[in-house]
């Protein structure tokens, strides 16, 4: 077995060299169709992009790049689109790669991320945390690390899955195989691509709140959102086991039982609506 520390360095090196990430073919198709349709508004296009973590990352990466002065501040798709405009967006979509081989299981990754985005926004609005849309974006991107594993480390990814099936908890399996967990991997890529600090910290610490420094409340929020969506059973749940609760969340961001109930009451209709989208994706992959 390779030394985890060595493997960790190797993984980071590979992530640094990553040119781009692929996404689901139906997403690119739909986006293309929407952009070509003259009746589409920028708002509709943004709404669709906000359902895909890969295109969102791409859009944010460009908006935060050298062309725009490396602001590291553009944190939502809507803001990014104000800068990019439709022509650049078209080029971004043309240069998007798609997964050659993807299974319905993998679509659950997308499903889960959209669910967490919705839940995170609901909690942010309820607890009056600033910029709920930015929090939603973090929710969307929180498992980016898993996509990186899927495309750049397929064999290792399969090995992790095997260990999980054997009873090893997800994070432990990832550390054994990669020397680094998916939260850190995703955050590292976002850092390479100049995404804003707040987003990076949230993604980095969504399983481990000791990594939360400047944005503790937001990180605890995302942690809850991830848990709640998994508890509700929407999208991927890593072989039907819930990740552990990081107890620190309870002291950083208190949620009363009635607040939690309200969250789920608000979440349910949102998940219901989003289900139509993800089921359509699965159908188109057949």
């Amino acid at each position, binding site marked *: 077995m390779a030394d985890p520390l060595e493997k960790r360095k190797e993984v980071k090196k590979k992530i640094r060299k990553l040119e781009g990430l692929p996404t689901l073919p139906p997403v690119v198709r739909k986006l293309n169709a929407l952009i070509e349709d003259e009746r589409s508004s920028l708002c509709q296009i943004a709404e669709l992009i906000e359902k895909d973590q890969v295109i969102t990352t791409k859009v944010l990466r460009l908006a935060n790049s050298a062309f725009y002065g490396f602001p590291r501040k553009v944190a939502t798709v809507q803001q990014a689109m104000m800068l990019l405009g439709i022509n650049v967006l078209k080029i971004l979509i043309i240069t998007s790669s798609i997964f050659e081989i993807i299974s319905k299981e993998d679509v659950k990754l997308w499903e889960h991320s959209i669910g967490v985005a919705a839940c995170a926004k609901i909690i942010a609005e309820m607890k009056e945390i600033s910029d709920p849309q930015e929090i939603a974006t973090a929710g969307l991107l929180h498992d980016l690390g898993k996509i990186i594993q899927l495309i750049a480390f397929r064999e290792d990814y399969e090995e992790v899955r095997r260990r999980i099936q054997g009873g090893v908890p997800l994070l432990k399996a990832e550390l054994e195989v990669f020397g680094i967990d998916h939260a850190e991997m995703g955050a590292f890529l976002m850092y390479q691509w100049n995404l804003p600090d707040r987003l990076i910290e949230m993604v980095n610490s969504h399983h481990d709140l000791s990594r939360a420094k400047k944005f503790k409340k937001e990180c605890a929020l995302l942690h809850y959102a991830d848990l709640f969506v998994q*508890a509700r059973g929407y999208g991927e749940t890593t072989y039907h086991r*819930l990740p552990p609760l990081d107890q620190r969340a309870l002291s950083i961001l208190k949620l009363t039982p009635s607040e939690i109930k309200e969250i789920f009451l608000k979440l349910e209709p949102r998940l219901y609506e989003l289900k139509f989208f993800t089921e359509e994706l699965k159908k188109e992959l057949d």
Partner: protein
Amino acid sequence: MQRLPLSYIRPGMKTFEEVVDAQGRVLCGKGVEISETMLQKFHELGVSYITVEGAPVKLPWEKTLEEELELLEKRFSNVDDEFLLNVKEIIKEVLTMKYSTGAKNG
């Protein structure tokens, strides 16, 4: 009643609630039968979802309350944390509420 995306709506379905556009403007009242022309209009004005009477569409992914609760128990089978167990109870409550109102819109 059933809440459906625009692409699932067919002429002949009756509205259960008012139809609003993306800006929140009311386009049509409740209890109105939807026509082809209305559908076109809704499409142009960016309407996303409409709640209709009855449950005209069978959604293959929908589960019964029993199925949901069973899966819920399964997901929590290895959990002993107090906070999380509370969350489970809350989800149970919310699900039971959802199914008891006969609401097919979440």
